[in-house]
């Protein structure tokens, strides 16, 4: 390798490094970058002059030149990060606002009110109706164990009904033991366990909350949805009481003239089980497209608490009896307010939210 070329290259590295270190701002650094790597830069010049060397020298000098270029590029990147951080810090520090200095009179006041989500409004209204009927309102966690979501509800491991729940499991502990509740029924188990522990039976409660299932969102399904359940555990509760409670609720919530009816169904946690239907609110029972000309629309499921559920939580089914019911809040809101697509609930478009 010829001496002059070699010393030129080393000088480029030295001077380049110094220029990079001296850049005081990202703008400066951009300037330095152009000078170092641009078409008229010394590096490019040195590269062009390689052509005049003999092949052996050219190879060696070319390799070195490449190294120097890479080293400088890396220094630029490092320096840029440092400078950008410093510039961001400087800007943020200059932008400082002591939040205790905020003067209330100078804070912008709204000129329009905000809107409670339609699903929340529906939930509140349901809570109020049930509170008026003598129910307390209970809540529970969204993550549960298999015991609360399934087994205590008479669905032991491998129970075929588990398959219908499309459960989402969490990566915690043993596989398939911790999950996102697929219904609000685990709250029933917590309530009954607690009442047994505290000796506070009877129970008259409704339980609203979020539930989770592996359901691809479409016009009538969301993977995260809201449900409300009711549970009554008392002495002498009968299926007739269940039918009467559903009817009273139907009239209280939907209005006079609205009827309910029960149909046999199957749920592992109730026996007897039923689906409940209400007069179609669109046609008032005359028959229309919404209700497939039946005059009734299905709202939810219900039934007498299965004695196996009572035994699982330590309640004596010979002394106590009870019923439970449940239905989807989102679905109810959808029906009642003629929302065309359930996905509107989670899109958060202000034009939708502010309608209610």
């Amino acid at each position, binding site marked *: 390798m010829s001496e002059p070329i070699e010393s030129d290259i080393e000088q480029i590295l030295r001077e380049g490094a110094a220029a990079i270190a001296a850049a005081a701002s990202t703008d400066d650094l951009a300037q330095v970058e152009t000078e170092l790597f641009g078409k008229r830069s010394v590096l490019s010049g040195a590269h062009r002059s390689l052509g005049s060397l003999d092949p052996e020298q050219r190879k060696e000098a070319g390799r070195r030149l490449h190294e120097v270029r890479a080293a400088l590029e890396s220094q630029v990147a490092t320096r840029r990060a440092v400078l950008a951080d410093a510039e961001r810090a400087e800007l943020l520090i200059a932008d400082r606002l002591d939040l205790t200095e905020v*003067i209330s009179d100078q804070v912008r006041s709204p000129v329009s009110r905000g809107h409670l989500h339609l699903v929340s409004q529906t939930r509140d209204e349901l809570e109020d109706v049930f509170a008026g009927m*003598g129910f*307390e309102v209970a809540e529970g966690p969204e993550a549960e*164990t298999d015991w609360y979501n399934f087994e205590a509800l008479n669905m032991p491991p491998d129970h075929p009904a588990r398959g219908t729940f499309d459960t989402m499991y969490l990566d915690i502990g*043993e596989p398939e*033991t911790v999950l996102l509740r697929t219904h609000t029924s685990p709250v029933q188990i917590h309530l009954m366990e607690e009442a047994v522990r505290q000796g506070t039976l009877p129970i008259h409660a409704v339980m609203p909350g979020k539930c989770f299932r592996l359901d691809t969102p479409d016009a009538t399904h969301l993977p995260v949805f809201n449900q409300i359940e009711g549970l009554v555990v008392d002495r002498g509760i009968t299926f007739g009481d269940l039918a009467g409670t559903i009817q009273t609720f139907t009239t209280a919530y939907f209005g006079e003239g609205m009827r309910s009816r*029960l149909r046999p169904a199957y749920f592992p946690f109730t026996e007897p089980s039923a689906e409940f239907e209400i007069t179609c609110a669109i046609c008032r029972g005359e028959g229309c497209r919404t209700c497939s000309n039946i005059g009734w629309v299905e709202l939810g499921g219900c039934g007498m608490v299965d004695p196996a559920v009572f035994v699982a939580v330590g309640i004596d089914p010979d002394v106590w009896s009870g019923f439970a019911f449940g239905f989807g809040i989102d679905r109810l809101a959808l029906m009642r307010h003629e929302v065309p697509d359930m996905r509107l609930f989670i899109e958060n478009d202000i034009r939708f939210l502010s309608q209610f």
Partner: protein
Amino acid sequence: MRAPLSWLRDFAQFPDDIRGLTAALDDLGLVVEEVEHVGEGLESIVVSEVTEITPIEGADKIRRVVVEAGDGPLEIVCGASNFEVGDRVPLAPVGAVLPDGTAIGRRKMRGVESNGMLCSGRELGLSDDGAGLLVLGDDIVASPGTLLTEALGLKDTVFDITVEGNRPDAWCMAGIARDLAARLGLPFTLPEPPAPPPSGVPVADGAQASVEDLDLCPRLTVSVLSDVVVGPSPRWIAERLTLAGMRPINNVVDASNYVMLERGQPTHPYDIERLGGRGLIVRRAGPGETVETLDGVTRTVGDRGADCLICDGENVPVGVAGIMGGASSEIAASTTEVLLEAAYFTPMAIARTSKRLGLRTEASARFERGCDPWGIDAAVNRFSQLLAESTPGLTVRDGTIDIRGAVPEPFTLAVPLARVRRQVGVPLTAEQIAALLDPIGFTTGAGDGPDLTVLVPTNRPDVRPAPYGIDDVIEEVARTFGYSNIPPHTPTWPEPGHLTALQRSRRLVKSVLGGLGASEGWTNTFVSEEAHRRVGLRGPAVRVSNPLLAEEPYLRRSLMPGLLGALAYNADRRQGSIRLYEVGVVFSHPDEGGPRVVERSGAGGSQKASLPLERELLSAVFAHHDDDARSAVGAWRVLADAFRVSGVRLVAPGPGELPALPAVLAGLHPTRAAQLVADGTTIGAVGEIDPGVATDFGLTHPSGTGTVARRIGWLEVDLGLLFDERVVPRRAMLAAAVSRFPSSDIDLALVVDDGVPADVVADVLGAAAGDLLESVTLFDVYRGAHIGEGRRSLAFRLRFCSLDHTLTDDEVGVLRGRCIDAAVAQLGAVLR
């Protein structure tokens, strides 16, 4: 399941009242999803016989046809040519309307009058064949003039019924008919098919069977049928299968399917010549064993030691038990000898394997719900009986190879009458209950005094043993009595209904936010790893093992990604000048070291499992075009006032270097954010979104030649902490006196270091001012060159008032002096 009325009528004389039948089925829990009227639209089509065919002069595509349809010869012009004199074809007479709406009129073509239309299968909606007329075969007995629907047996009604998962007994024609007949008070008969005539050759001659794992297959029977001629099924069998929604295949497979639809018992026919060792071995699959099923898929079984295989006599797998057979031993046109497998498999085992293989068939769905292990023998005889119709020379080897383990048996329950009455709420007598249960297959008898003895048949696996089975029987009583016949009664109780304090507080929060112009959003609980990183959150997140979207497997640790996403969504639609909030749950990983939530888990709830910590947050974004951190601070003040909270401080990092942010301030502007601290406990955060984060979410506005981040206020409060009065004390709801005397104001402008928060100054002033102070309000902040770097002037208005007199100037002067002294002494303030 599709149930044709004509088929149901094999078992009971059901009336024609379709509405009544539908209502009865619905009320029994056999929900009718749809009623199909077969032959609808074909009411005016009749059978006609061709008596003459002559060409029409000058036309080569159409001919003159004379038909007899019961009312004398009719002249018709027809374009089809696939028929001869003597054939019987469908006629749409003048005035008829075809299913597609075409109205048939009298027409004249080439001088020939056409008095109707002869129809193809396609024109009648009966087949895809539109090439020629539908020519009736010799097997159809119908004289000219007969309605086509009658001739073809097309007059039927099919109920599409959803049978609940606990009612395998009702998942067949006989089962539906049994329930329906009982409800309508009609006699129900399920004929016992006769055993085939003896052939003199025992089944064990030339066939073998064994069960190695009786826990998976408690009963296996094998029969052998010889001299089989494989061909099409008799017309009536093919028609019924078609109406029920199954495609006819050949007489052997059809007979098996027919038996399943009629009685609910799946069977499997094999070509015995193609079965190695002319027999079956039923056993547990070994790890990693494979079997090629009928659908051509090679399936791996045996991983958990719970899959049941059907193997041939040489132990080579030929099917997944109860789910799907294999191609190797399928019935073929050449089959002459059939081995019929009819078994009872353990329902749970079939359910597990079916789920794991993702393979569900008509057979597996029935086996996993539970077939009647003692219905097998009748099903096998029925199969022979049906096959004999199309194979007159059929011989059946004598007996069956019948291998049994612990086969469920009928059992007796003592059902307390008092419990029936208590659960149902109707004072039913023992006789009434018996009259409800006996017609649907239970056998009742007088029990000991207050009990009714109920013998539970083996086709009712939904009825558990005692004690829970009692309630299963009660359900049958209520169901057959009719839910709609149970008088409704609304119970009352002395305990009042109410919302909890937390629920009322949550509603107050939402009401406050609404008053501040913020609308409530609902954002996704599931987020990507990226979403947390984008708002500066590090550390573990709870992961869903089987997420709906692979890219969003985590449970959210913050509502910020969701709310900023919602803002960006609106901004993209030119409506970004809004305020949004959400009240929702965020999750912390149990490994994060926070408080652990331990719950019962595992079999019997005997194990413990750690759960994620759930916190309910209020988070709000203030993104009106002139909002910034101040809007969020203002919102917090209103919220604090609504909850009568005054002790919460805004704790911000001091001036100077850029501070490292605690997790609660992640994603926020480092010098425009503060923690909300109640006596040492952080309950939330207030401030402005970090401009880098806002830019990342596309929340920018134009500035000069480029864009800059929008200022977006942020408020987050942990509601569990805010609502806990032990953490955040509230002013009692007790009235304080309001003075009747005029108040006096003094204004103080104090210069203090930037490091001294304004609220600390207010507190010092308040403490010094004493009981006569009514309020202290910051009304001006001034920074400027003559005040000096790192300092600012804070102007406060202090309002004094006494309950019992008008304050004198002297009194106020003394108080003023005390306040100034305190500020000077404690904070190094300088009065301006």
